């Protein structure tokens, strides 16, 4: 009952004209960046971080949430019409979706993706509204040692489970933690990594770091290979579905939701693993297995539902624990910090109206997205004809403006360029960006919890294990870290490993632009078999 009335209050806030306007702006921007390959919600939210200085927190978060959900919708359009995933979460959609489009069923593929996303997004958001307060209730009883353990788990899981190479993941995490360390030590006031430069004493502003890594790095990377043979979008009319399409879609939608939400809520969940699991499940359960590989509607409906449910799932630990599990959530968390709002279990208590308005806006955003995506899909596909030089010139302009507006210091522009070059090099050498950004954002908070723990135990490291939950989490961490070695041993003992299906190979082919999780997907696929 309490949840219900809070949620209704949230709706009242989110439906005020101004907030509604920001929701509309958010979903339109989100769909646009979702459609364009290479641009994503994380970069967009990062570029918009400076607006947090001018906007009400509620309006800003409503806009960010719209961008986040919109990215999921837009990504599927590109996947289906172009066979290039607009987002890492719609890699799997391209497998069947593009085949459908080639067979002249693009309209049905887009429709099942949009409606499935709506269904899953709405159920997912409802689950978020129900689950988050429960998680909070549990979380407020946790002490510093448990928090420390949970955050370490989140960092390690993201680094070790996602991404094609653990070594690259940890290198990226190390860079992130190092950037997070710059500045004054919060307890002793000692200067760390400032190189005698007084401007570094306050640390690097997260806005500058996020904009540099996401926007400048990506722009340089695109500029480095600007010219590519153009692709051909498959022409499409108004998306619609026949009766048999509905019949074949609704079960995959629900199953996709069931995969997506829990995986999104887990640290290292993200949207990639559940979309792939959903694809594999639909392939096995389908009454038309012969259609898979030639454009089966189930193979679009399931994964698209899964990625939107995962988006809702991701917000659960973000709002309830202050724990981001993907890049967009991480940047949104940075926005909380820049408002001086302390993320964590106290958030529901201290910022109740804001959090519930945010959740309500997710319902509204979902509906808006369905409305703007279903009839307008052909229009969104036109965005793909934008010449990249104009697009990235604009991005660089806003990136520079944003970074400068933070402190009005030219010094920040130097930092922007240095870190932008770092972002470029990371893309060049295949380092995933997510561990870095999580390291920067979670690093200082992890340190805070560690310091608190050690102060409580008077410097005795045994204090880290003083709570049973912390110990349990360390066991999970050990399993995650040791799992690949165990996996290798098992594989050595069983000589004939079943080859992963052609789908896995396809997913890997489709996925070069976005740093995704070949290995994770691959091993999960194996587990299922």
């Amino acid at each position, binding site marked *: 009952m309490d949840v219900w009335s809070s949620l209704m209050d949230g709706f009242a806030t989110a439906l005020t004209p101004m907030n509604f306007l920001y929701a509309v702006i958010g979903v339109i921007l989100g769909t646009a960046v979702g459609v*364009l*390959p290479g641009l994503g919600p994380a970069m967009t939210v990062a570029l918009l971080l400076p607006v947090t200085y001018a906007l009400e927190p509620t309006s800003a978060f409503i806009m960010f949430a719209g961008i986040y959900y919109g990215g999921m919708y837009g990504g599927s359009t590109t996947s289906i019409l*172009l066979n*290039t995933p607009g987002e890492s979460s719609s890699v799997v959609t391209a497998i069947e979706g593009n085949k459908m489009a080639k067979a002249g069923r693009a309209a049905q593929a887009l429709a099942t993706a949009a409606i499935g996303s709506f269904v899953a997004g709405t159920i997912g958001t409802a689950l978020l509204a129900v689950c988050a307060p429960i998680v909070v209730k549990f979380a407020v009883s946790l002490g510093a040692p448990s928090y420390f353990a949970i955050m370490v788990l989140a960092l390690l899981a993201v680094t070790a489970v996602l991404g094609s190479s653990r070594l690259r993941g940890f290198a990226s995490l190390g860079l992130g933690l190092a950037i997070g360390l710059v500045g004054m030590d919060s307890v002793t006031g000692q200067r760390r990594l400032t190189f005698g430069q007084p401007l570094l004493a306050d640390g690097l502003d997260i806005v500058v770091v996020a904009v540099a890594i996401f926007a400048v790095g990506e722009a340089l990377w695109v500029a480095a290979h*600007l*010219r*590519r*043979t*153009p*692709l*051909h*979008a498959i022409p499409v009319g108004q998306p619609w579905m026949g009766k048999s399409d509905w019949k074949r879609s609704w079960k995959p939608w629900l199953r996709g939701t069931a995969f997506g939400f829990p995986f999104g809520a887990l640290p290292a969940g993200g949207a990639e693993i559940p979309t792939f699991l959903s694809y594999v499940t639909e392939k096995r359960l389908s009454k038309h297995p012969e259609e898979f590989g030639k454009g089966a509607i189930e193979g679009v409906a399931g994964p698209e539902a899964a990625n939107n449910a995962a988006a809702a799932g991701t917000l659960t630990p973000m709002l309830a624990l202050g724990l981001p599990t993907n890049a967009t959530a991480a940047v949104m968390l940075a926005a909380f910090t820049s408002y001086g709002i302390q993320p964590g279990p106290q958030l529901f208590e201290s910022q109740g109206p804001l959090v519930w308005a945010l959740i309500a806006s997710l319902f509204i955003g979902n509906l808006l997205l369905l409305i703007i995506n279903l009839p307008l899909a052909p229009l969104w*596909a036109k965005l*793909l*004809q*934008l*010449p*990249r*030089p104009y697009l990235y010139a604009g991005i660089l302009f806003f990136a520079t403006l944003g970074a400068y507006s933070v402190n009005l210091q030219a010094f920040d522009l130097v930092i922007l360029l240095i870190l932008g070059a770092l972002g470029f090099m990371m893309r060049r050498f295949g380092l995933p960006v997510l561990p870095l950004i999580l390291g920067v954002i979670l690093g200082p908070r992890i340190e805070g919890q560690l310091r608190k723990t050690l102060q409580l135990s008077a410097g005795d490291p045994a204090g880290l294990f003083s709570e049973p939950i912390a110990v349990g989490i360390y066991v999970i961490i050990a399993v995650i870290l040791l799992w690949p070695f165990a996996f290798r041993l098992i594989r050595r003992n069983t000589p004939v490993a079943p080859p992963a299906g052609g789908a896995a190979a396809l997913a890997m082919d489709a996925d070069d632009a976005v740093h995704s999780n070949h290995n994770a997907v691959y091993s999960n696929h194996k587990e299922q078999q």
Partner: protein
Amino acid sequence: MTVVVGYVPTPEGEAALTQAITEARKNNSTLVLINSSKGEAAVDTRFAPEGGIQDIERRLAGEGIQYLIKRPVRGHDAAAEVLDAAEEHKAELIVIGLRRRTPVGKLIMGSTSQRILLEADCPVLAVKAS
């Protein structure tokens, strides 16, 4: 001697191609077809798809003339590519398709045809869509 044709998959482009085939056959010259893209957008509708190019190839082979199909993607605009090819292949004639443009459209985007007409060293034959 060669006939260079700037091709885009539109009615104007088709008209230019048809005219170029006639010209090439008349003088027994090689037909050089240019279909280029700057390669800067993810999708370029003026860059013919693989299937379309194969159809054209079949058609040209059926016409019994010598031909060369070029699809450069190197960041130059279409006018520069056509002029380049004309110079390289010592063209006797360039064939292009014209389409109606608004003055504002020309002001903002410039005109490929105009550049070719003004800068070409050989005669330029401009045709309209039938």
